[in-house]
Every structure is written in C-alpha cells, then in structure tokens.
C-alpha cells in the first residue's frame, strides 16, 4: 500500500518557482503549500491537522518550520504558507526540532498511553511521529484529562475524547467536505472537546471517513473496534463496488477475514473518501448468512425444499435444464438476468456463455432499474470532466447523495469551490438542490420535453408543469457557462420506464451535440456488464447483433440469431411461459424489479430458475438450483465504474464454503454444454479476449491495468459509441389520477447488502408516502397520517412525511423500504399515475 495515495493530490508543475529546502534548491509549483512542496522533495514535515483534501487550519503547530522570505528565518506553519520565489525553508534546524519536541510533549500530556488497547496503535500518526520527532519522554507529572469512555457520535462511530488531540480534521470534514456540520468543538481551553449537538447524532453518510482521517484513536468505527491489530492486517488495494462510482479502497484482512475497508486517494475519483455504506459493506463479506454450498430443490410444489447438493450434481442439473430448454424452445428459451455486480471478466464469461455458447440474446444485466445500454453510446464525460472548474452541468440523475454518495461530494465541491454552475432537472429536489443554480422539477415523464425547452431556447410557456419564468431563469443560468455543457444522466424515477430517462438524454444531445454525458447507474459494474455484452441486442463493446455477427462469430462458437428483450420483456416472456430456464446472476427480481407482480408471475411460470448469489434472497427461495458465488474481496478481476474507468479488483480472502467466482460457473457450464475450448480460461484470459475484440478497450491490456500505480484505473474510449436516439416513449397526459408517482432509492434500503451489515441496520428508515407542502395543504393532513396511494394496478398505504423537495402533484415513495410502491407500478406504463387519499 502506498502512502502517496492515502493522502495526496497530484501536483502538476505549470508555474515553477525555485525554493531552497534544507540547503537544496528544488522546483515547486507556485502557490502550493510549503508542506506539500517539502514532502514531494524528500523533506517530510510532520503534521496532524493538515489534510491535503481539506482547507488547512494551522492548528496543531506540528508543521512549524523556519521560513525565510528575505526578512530572516521565522517559525511558520508550513501548511498555511504558499511557496514563493526565493523562499528558504529549513525543516531540520535545532529551532524546528525544539518546537517539534515541544508540540509532541504538549499533545501527549493529556493523551492516555493506552496504545496497547487502542485500535490505532501500530498505525497511529501520533505514535509514529512521537517516535520520529518527539522528545522521548514526558515531564508531565500532573493528572491527565478524563472523560466518559467512549461516547457514541453515531450508530457506527464512537469517540474516546481523552485521546483526541483536537486537530479539527473530523469537524472540518463534517462541515467542509460533506456539509453535515453535526460535530463541533465545545468548551474551551484544555477542556475543549469534539461532540455532537445534544440529541443530534453524527448521522452523516460519510461519518466513517472521520475514523480514517483521525490522527489518533479518538474516533473508532464500531465494525472494526477491537477486531484486529494493524500489524496483523494484510492489505490489498481494490475498488468498491457498492455503487458505480468505483471508489478506490484498501481491503484489510486478518486470518482470512475481511476486517476493514479504507479509502485510497484516487485523484480522478474518490479523493480518499468512501461512503459509510461502501466502507462498512465489508461486514456483508464475512456474514454468517452467506451461501456456502449449492442448493437444489427436492420435491415439487408447495412442499418442496432446497437441500444442499454437490457442485457437480448442481452443475449437471443446470446444464441439463439448459439443454432441455434449447431442445424444446431453442436459444430464446434461456434467459439471463443480472450480472451488474460481477467483475468485468465474470460478466464477459456469462455473456460468452449466453450468447456465444447457448446462443440466446435474452440477456439483461439490469432489472429495468438502470439505464438502457444506448446511454453508453453518448459521448462520455469523466467525473473530472463534469467537475472541471468553471464548467456548466445539467443534472438529470437521481439524488447523488442517496445513490452515489462520493459523486455527491465531488459535485458539491465543484459547485462550491470550483465555480461550476449546476442546473438540475429532476422529478423532486435532491441533496444538490442547495447548491444548484436552478432546480426544475417536471412532472414524471416530461423531463425530455423540459430539457428540450431548456436547451433549445426557452419556449416562453410552461413545460411539464414548470412555470415559464422558472424555465427562463434556469436557461439563463445554463447560458452563463462558457464551456461546453456536461450532462449527468441517470434514473431519477424508478416508476418511469427507462426509456423516459433515455429520451431526456437524447433531447439534451439533440439540443447540444457538443455536450458530453456522464451516465449514472447505481449498481456497481453495470457499465462493465453492458460493455461485456450482458445486454440485449448487442455484442461486447456495444456492437449490434447485425454489425458484430461476423467478428464475434469468429471468436465464439455461436452467435445469437434473433434479438432478445430487456428485463421487462424477459419477465413478460417468462410470465407467458416462453422461458424454460431463467438464470439470475446476483439479481433478485422478486424484490428489485420495477413490476414485482410481473416478476412473481415470471418466476412461477419458469420451469427452472438457476440463481447465483452470495445470499439467500426471495428469488433464490423460488429457484430450482442455487449456486453460491464469491463477491468483493474474494475474486480477482477488473470493474468498470460509471465513467467507464476500468480498475482492478483484488482478492484478499477465500470465499466461504465452496462458493466460486461467477466466471468459473460459466466456464463449467460451457464445458458441460460441449464447449471445451473455454473451460480453462481464468480472469486474465477472459479480459485478454474481451479487450482484444472491443475497440473501446484499446490500450487497456493487463500490462497497463496492473501497473504498480493503478489506483486511478484507465478510462475506456468515451467516443467509441454512436448514439442513435430511440423513439421516445408516448407519455400520456395527466388524467383523473391527480398525481404522478416517483420512486427513488435511499442509501440505506432493505437491499441484501445493508441487510447483512449489522452496524448499519439501524440506519434503515421507515418507508413513507412523501408529499410536498402544497399537496399536504390540499389534503389537510398532518405528518404521520396514514395515506393510501392508488393506481390502476393496486394501492399501498403508509404514513405521510412532508418534504419541501417534492413538488405539487408528485408522490414520492422510496424503493425497498417498508412502504413498497411496486403494487402501483406496471412495466407496461411509461409513467405511473396515482391518487392519494387519507387511509
């Protein structure tokens, strides 16, 4: 693990100045801080409060060095002083050493010497720097400070205040980086302490980062507390796949058990931060609920049960079921759903099995809850492109704080610190609302029309329920940017058809052909799965069936003859009894499909459901064959984030029981289906084959991806695709159902990852029917009143929550919480019209 990446921005020297550091002339970037310039030039200056991703405060005084700007050397905090020409810096003089001795002694007088029982002991900056820069012993004979041990700042973060050295890192992080200023200093002088406000816990989605950046053991995370000693940990760099941002992280393990994830500073992606869900999702890796052996259904009908089976028996049965389906219905009788949490290699192995061996195109990595594959054909933008200083961003995605938390940090930073103008067009307000130059909330289904009006010269009339004046103001804000438009496109409303989100992107592309797009999807490797071919109508790399038939026909034993359908179409076909074998790659359509009743009918009508999963889910409970698979920290390979950035995943522990990597299952099934040529392949060979045959992956060979300095990954060719705008869906006019439904996701939902993270389970909130103040006034109800929401397909009820983020005429229900919106939704409707009444 390299220290450079844990803390450190990349510095490009564009405006060099020469300074003298300890008698040596070195080149520094004008305006960079002395502490950084010295560190890059082998004169590391000890520090506690300074963190390169936060504003310096100069509080700990550990970084005092002698700086001479022509008026003689003076002790100055090197974290506050920008380098200037002819500056002379001395970091090793007796005066500096005296100050360092003094500061370390001061910091230790009240710091308990409980290092032997402290989680930080062994990787503690205070410990390390006391050894390197301290006086060696203390002259303190008075009594130390005492506080109650420990206090809970939040469900996951605990604080031992007497260990705190008051460096302001956590408090600065809370207010500056995340804008959740829930912890602060209280009291004064030597009694100063960090604490929450009474009754207001530090419920930030990013609270775990404070544990990582704490320079002492004052902040500890409940999932790791007392679990290991740092010197027993083995560390591997990898990438988080909890969402599609793809934050770089380290996996720490001990005795074959994952114990901790920590953020790594990847300059183009996560800047060393992780969200709490990603950080603590390691708990799910070692969960006792993991599937450890194959299961097969014995008996039939209501009395049947899943019983353990040997792998060869289960695989033989799976292969037999596939052969049976091929015999009776042809390739289209086999369908594959899911795969957006697999590695690129596993996704490719499954695409190859499905399309190149079985010959079916009934393959979709998403469950109708993401974006159609066409969005990846749009000219792409990276996160850095979107956040480039002074840029203009049109945001069409979901609430980033809930779905892609670290992307929220980057966007917020871009707006507040880098002068980025952000206009959001979303069905409801989001966490970006307070930073956006303008926020427009069109009626569900009408985003495309609004985007067209916004970018194509405001029409001067109301569009999609947005008043003309608001539209004009937003258009002005967008016109104010001189650079090219960056569009973040995503699926803000799960109750809409995915085609609605695509139509909005198409409208932006038509109005601004020079715009670049960042498609945001939640599931970790959706982009990689689509790129690897787990999407209907396409070969790997996005080539259509017709265009790629010759190329892939020479690589694979077979190619699909006829185009398949997307997840909704596959489920519909299955419900009609046209699918004999349905393979679920980590997908749980009974919970996650937009139209759950359709999913239930589909699963019930399918002869053989084969589920590959880490955990038992509602869908595995209905499957005939359940195969346990390895997940994050258990398989090697690569992943592709929402930008198209391919980075490495590294195994640190062995999967529980006999669980196997998904690609192994695909290879075994291919062999059983008579295709022996593929059987010996591993991730390296799979990637080599994919990479060699996909133009967008040119240059991303293993040698380039696995260099020592691979934290940042490599971005696929973002201009490789050719976007063809599909026909927009016909959105019906508002009707007798007075409102339209918005279903969005929250970070802590009832999904299987959170369900297996004990420390975070309490953060799952109760479901609710969320209405805006206007509609609440019309209904004349109070928060907490039970409301019934009805659509032509069904009704649900739940308690009312009032939110100013929800516009008039819109009903918001969160996905996968206790109020389940799926009875209202039908996959056949592009939007979901509903009515709200008091229950």
């Amino acid at each position, binding site marked *: 693990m390299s220290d450079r990446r844990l803390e450190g921005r990349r510095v490009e020297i564009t405006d060099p100045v020469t300074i003298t550091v300890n008698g040596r002339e070195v080149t520094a970037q004008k305006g960079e801080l002395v502490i950084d310039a010295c560190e890059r030039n082998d004169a590391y200056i000890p520090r506690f409060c300074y963190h390169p991703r936060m504003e310096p405060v100069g509080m700990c*005084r550990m970084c005092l060095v002698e700086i001479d700007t022509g008026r003689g050397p003076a002790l100055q905090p090197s974290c506050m002083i920008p380098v200037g020409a002819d500056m002379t810096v001395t970091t090793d003089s007796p005066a500096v050493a005296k100050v360092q001795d003094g*500061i370390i002694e001061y910091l230790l007088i009240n710091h308990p010497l409980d290092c032997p029982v402290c989680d930080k002991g062994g990787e503690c900056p205070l410990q390390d720097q006391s050894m390197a820069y301290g006086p060696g012993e203390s002259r303190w004979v008075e009594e130390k400070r005492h506080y109650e041990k420990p206090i809970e700042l939040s469900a996951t973060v605990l604080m031992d205040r007497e260990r705190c050295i008051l460096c302001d890192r956590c408090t600065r992080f809370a207010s500056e980086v995340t804008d959740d200023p829930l912890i602060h200093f209280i009291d004064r002088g030597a009694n100063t302490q960090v604490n929450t406000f009474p009754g207001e816990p530090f419920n930030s989605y990013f609270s775990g980062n404070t544990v990582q950046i704490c320079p002492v053991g004052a902040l500890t995370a409940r999932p790791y507390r007392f679990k290991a000693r740092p010197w027993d940990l083995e560390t591997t760099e990898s990438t988080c796949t909890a969402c599609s941002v793809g934050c770089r992280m380290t996996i720490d393990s001990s005795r074959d058990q994952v114990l901790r994830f920590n953020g790594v500073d990847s300059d183009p992606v996560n800047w060393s931060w992780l969200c709490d869900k990603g950080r603590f999702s390691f708990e799910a890796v070692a969960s006792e609920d993991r599937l450890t052996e194959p299961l097969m259904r014995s008996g039939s009908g209501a009395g049947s049960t899943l019983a353990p089976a040997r792998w060869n028996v289960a695989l033989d049965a799976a292969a037999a079921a596939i052969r049976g389906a091929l015999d009776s219905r042809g390739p289209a009788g086999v369908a594959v759903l899911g795969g957006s949490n697999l590695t690129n290699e596993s996704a490719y192995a499954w695409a190859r099995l499905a399309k190149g061996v079985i010959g079916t195109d009934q393959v979709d990595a998403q469950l109708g809850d993401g974006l159609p594959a066409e969005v990846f054909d749009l000219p792409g933008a990276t996160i850095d492109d979107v956040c480039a200083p002074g840029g203009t961003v049109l945001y069409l995605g979901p609430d980033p704080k809930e779905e892609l938390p670290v992307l929220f940090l980057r966007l917020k930073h871009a707006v507040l610190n880098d002068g980025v103008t952000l206009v959001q067009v979303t069905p409801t307000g989001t966490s970006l609302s307070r930073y956006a130059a303008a926020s427009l909330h069109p009626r569900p289904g009408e985003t495309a029309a609004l985007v067209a009006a916004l970018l194509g010269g405001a029409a001067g009339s109301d569009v999609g329920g947005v008043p003309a004046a608001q539209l004009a103001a937003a258009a002005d804000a967008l016109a104010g940017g001189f650079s090219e438009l960056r569009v973040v496109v995503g699926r803000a409303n799960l109750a809409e058809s995915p085609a609605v989100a695509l139509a909005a992107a198409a409208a932006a592309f038509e109005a601004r052909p020079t715009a670049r797009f960042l498609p945001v999807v939640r599931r970790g490797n959706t982009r990689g799965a689509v790129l690897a071919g787990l999407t209907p109508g396409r070969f790997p790399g996005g080539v259509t069936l017709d265009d790629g038939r010759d190329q892939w026909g020479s690589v694979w034993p077979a190619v699909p003859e006829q185009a398949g359908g997307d997840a909704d179409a596959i489920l519909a076909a299955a419900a009609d009894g046209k699918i004999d074998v349905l393979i679920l790659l980590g997908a749980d359509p009974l919970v996650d499909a937009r139209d759950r009743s359709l999913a239930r009918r589909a699963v019930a009508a399918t002869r053989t459901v084969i589920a590959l999963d880490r955990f038992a889910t509602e869908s595995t409970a209905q499957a005939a064959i359940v195969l346990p698979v390895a997940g994050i920290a258990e398989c090697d390979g690569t992943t592709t984030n929402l930008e198209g950035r391919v980075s490495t995943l590294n195994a640190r522990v062995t999967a529980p029981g006999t669980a196997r990597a998904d690609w192994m299952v695909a290879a075994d099934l291919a062999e059983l289906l008579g295709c022996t040529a593929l059987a010996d392949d591993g991730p390296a060979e799979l990637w080599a084959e994919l990479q060699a045959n996909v133009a967008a992956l040119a240059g991303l060979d293993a040698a380039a991806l696995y260099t020592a300095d691979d934290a940042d990954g490599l971005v696929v060719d973002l201009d490789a695709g050719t976007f063809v705008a599909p026909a927009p869906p016909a959105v019906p006019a508002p009707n007798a159902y007075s409102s339209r439904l918005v279903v969005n996701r929250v970070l802590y939902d009832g999904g299987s990852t959170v369900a297996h993270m004990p420390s975070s389970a309490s953060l799952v909130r109760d479901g609710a029917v969320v209405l805006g103040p206007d509609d609440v006034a019309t209904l004349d109800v109070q928060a907490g009143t039970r409301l019934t929401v009805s659509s032509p397909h069904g009704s649900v009820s739940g308690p009312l929550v009032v939110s100013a983020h929800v516009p008039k005429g819109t009903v918001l229900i969160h996905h996968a919480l206790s109020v389940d919106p799926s009875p209202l939704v039908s996959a056949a409707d592009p939007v979901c019209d509903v009515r709200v009444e008091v229950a």
Partner: protein
Amino acid sequence: MEPRVSSRFEVVDGHTLAGYQDSGSYRGYDGIKAALAMSPDAVTGMVKDATVLGRGGAGFPAGVKWGFCPPGVWPRYIVVNGDESEPGTYKDRVLMERDPHQLIEGCLIAAYAIGAAQVFLYVRGEMPHAQERIAAALNEAYAANLVGRNILGTDFSVDIILTWGAGAYIVGEETALIESLEGNRGMPRLKPPYFPAAKGLYMQPTIVNNVETLSNLPWLFCHGVDEYRSIGTETSPGTRLVALSGHLNSPGVYEIPQGSTTYRELFESEQYGNGIRGGRQLKMFIPGGASAPWFFPEQVDLPLEGRDVGAAGSMLGSGAIVVMDDTTDAVKACLRVVRFFARESCGKCTPCREGTTWEEKILQRILDGHGRPSDLDLLLDVADNISPGPYPVAADPSQGLDAVPFPPRQTTICPLGPSSVAPITSALRRFRSEFEAKITRRNSIAVSTEAFTAPADESVDELVGEAAGAEPLSGTGGRFDV
C-alpha cells in the same frame, strides 16, 4: 489639560443625545458634519495627519490601517471591537456606558472615510449596561436621522449593528471577533494568509477598530489636526485613557496626555493614582494589561510611550495599569494571571491549549507545597515552547540583567498563549527566591499580613455628591466600578 474623550464621564445625562450635544469638549455630531463636508479620502488623510494611534493594544495608526482596504472591493465593513476583557482594562466600558453617542459618531466618521455601509459594534457579553446604553443611543440616533438612510440629508447611509459576545476573552482578538460575528466559535484565524483589511468579515475587506480609537474621532473633527497634536508627543500625539487598578489610593480611568506622562506621575499625582495605598512600597506593576511583562520600581520614570515601553521590555497595550505593592505574593500574582490565560485559551492551537494549562498546574502545585526544584526550569521551558527564544522582560540592574525588548516570538496562532508567559518570565527572573522559598520551605515567604482596608474612593463620593440631586447612581451602572 482639558479632557477630550472623557469630557462627559461625569455628566449625568452625557449618554443621551441631548446630553451629548449640550455638554463636553465639543458639540455632539458636529464632527460627522465636518467630516461629511470633506471627501472620504480627506477624512482618512486627516486621521493619518493627526496620527490617531489604535488604542486596542498594538498602537497601530488608524488612518494607515484604513488605507489597507484593497481598492475597488465592496462591500467593506467596520467592526468595532468593544470586547474589552483584558484583566485591568475597563476604559472602553466607561466610554460605552457614559458616552455612547461619541462612539457612534466615531463609527460614522470611519464608515464615511472607508466607504462602509455597515458597522458591526461588538460589545463584550458581560457588559449589559454598555449594551443597553448603546442600544438606547442608537435608537435616539436613528430617530434623529444621525444613523441610517441619508444621514443629515446627505446621500451617506450607514447602519450600525449592535452585537454582543457570549463571554470569551479571545474574542477581543480581531479575527476571533470576526469569527464570532459570523456566528462561528470564537477562534482566531491565522494571519497570513488573510488579514482582515483584505479579507475579514464574510471574507470582505474589514477594518477592526477599538472603541477608544473611534471615540477620538469626533473631537478631532471638531477641533482639527493641530489642536489634536498640541498634546502628547510627536509620535504619540493626543490623549489616551488609562485604567489604573491595584494598590493605589485612587484607582480609576484617567485621560492623560499621550506619550509624555510617566508612570510615576500616574501613581503619585493627586490628579491620578494619588499614591500607593497606605504609603507602602511599589513592588511591581503591569504597564499595559495582563498580557504585558511586568515592570518594577526602576521603570516608573518611563513615559507612557509605546516605543520606550517596548524597548524597556513590555508594552503599552490597552492602557491597563495594575499596581502591586510589597504585600503582594509574586507567585500568587503570577498564578492569578496565568490561570486567566489558561481558562481563556480557545483551545485551537496546541501550545496555548496545553501549555497554558500546564503552566497553571505547575504554579498551583508550587503554591500547594508540592513544588520540586526542577519545576522552575520546567516552567520556563514549557513557556519557551509557547514563545521560543528570549521573552521580553524588564531590565534588572540589581542582577545586572538587561531588558529584552518587545514583542515576543510565538509558536501559536495568536498572542494569547505567549501572554501567559509574561508573568512567568517577569516574576521568575525578579523574584526567583520567592518561588524557591515556596519549594524548599514549603511555605510562603514573609510578606506582610497586616490587615488592610481599602480606602474610601473619594472620586466616587464626589460623584455621588454631585449627582445626588439628579439621579441616584445604582450599582448596575451610572458609575464606573473598579
């Protein structure tokens, strides 16, 4: 000498608009009228020509400070530092309680000069009477169109916003005051990178001036530069207020010619301190507030002139002079001052937060009879880690020791931490034997334990006598309690 800024201290209704305009050394609000007849640059020029020195402690010329605002950056703010909390200092409190209109008029002149439309008047939290008086005066001034929109029919508009603190000494430091005004915890900002004149309140150009500094402006604009400079010295013209406290017969706030009066005059003259109580001997005195290194009998003939006092190893500071006679226990006095700084440290930077507390604990231990011989060097080294190098201290001819001139160096962000070192180096160099006696003999040296009763404060009696017919003076205000 005719009183200038203190001319209404003993006028019973001097705090009202009518009283302000009918009494004192000039007619109230004539100063702003004179200033409004000039260009803003000319107003700044006049303040520069008069060399109005800042009275908060640093003694920096106000007119020069005003010129530090970067040109063309708006809005600009004026912040009035009324967070007077230095132990021994209470001159601003009297100014705010007894002559609030004088301060308001000073604010107007400064706002006109630098082009500020808002003045933030920050009054110490523990001065409710001053807050009430200023609030009442502001109401009167707004009603009389002396503050607010189109003042006196001109196109000059300014709002004065009264704010008060929550009880933190450190907020008297200008950047901590700005943080507090912004609603944050009162902790100093680091200077550099930004100085308030360039980026202060809400990161806009901000001039922070002391109450007394601004209170000098109306008189200046009524009487002119020449008359202003007719008193005092070339480098320190005009008058200044000093707050005498401690073992004097007549402690109180006095207006004295700046730069020329000596400490001996202040202590001995009937006009001022009227001698040490009970005819006792002077042991030491603090010449400029608790932050200042101590002076001893050899320094009493120094004039109250910034440069002279600085060269002699202390500072003029805020004009608070604390006199201690030979009954004073140097170790206890030292602890008393150090404890103040330890309790008031904001906790932001390590040396001050941990160092001042450590100093306090060592001193307390010595006083408790648990001192060790090594503690004195330890104390000095703990202090040295807050303020490295030789600390400013007065000369001691009896030991053949020279003075170390002001200012001290610091490892801290603001001067609070180094201030705690002042009593330690001063007392320990001069009275090391007292410390050693406490350590070796485990008891106090023989200082006089003779019972002592404070003399009646005659100035108060006089004041009560004069005011008796008009308005009874209550303990909560109306007179400046010592």
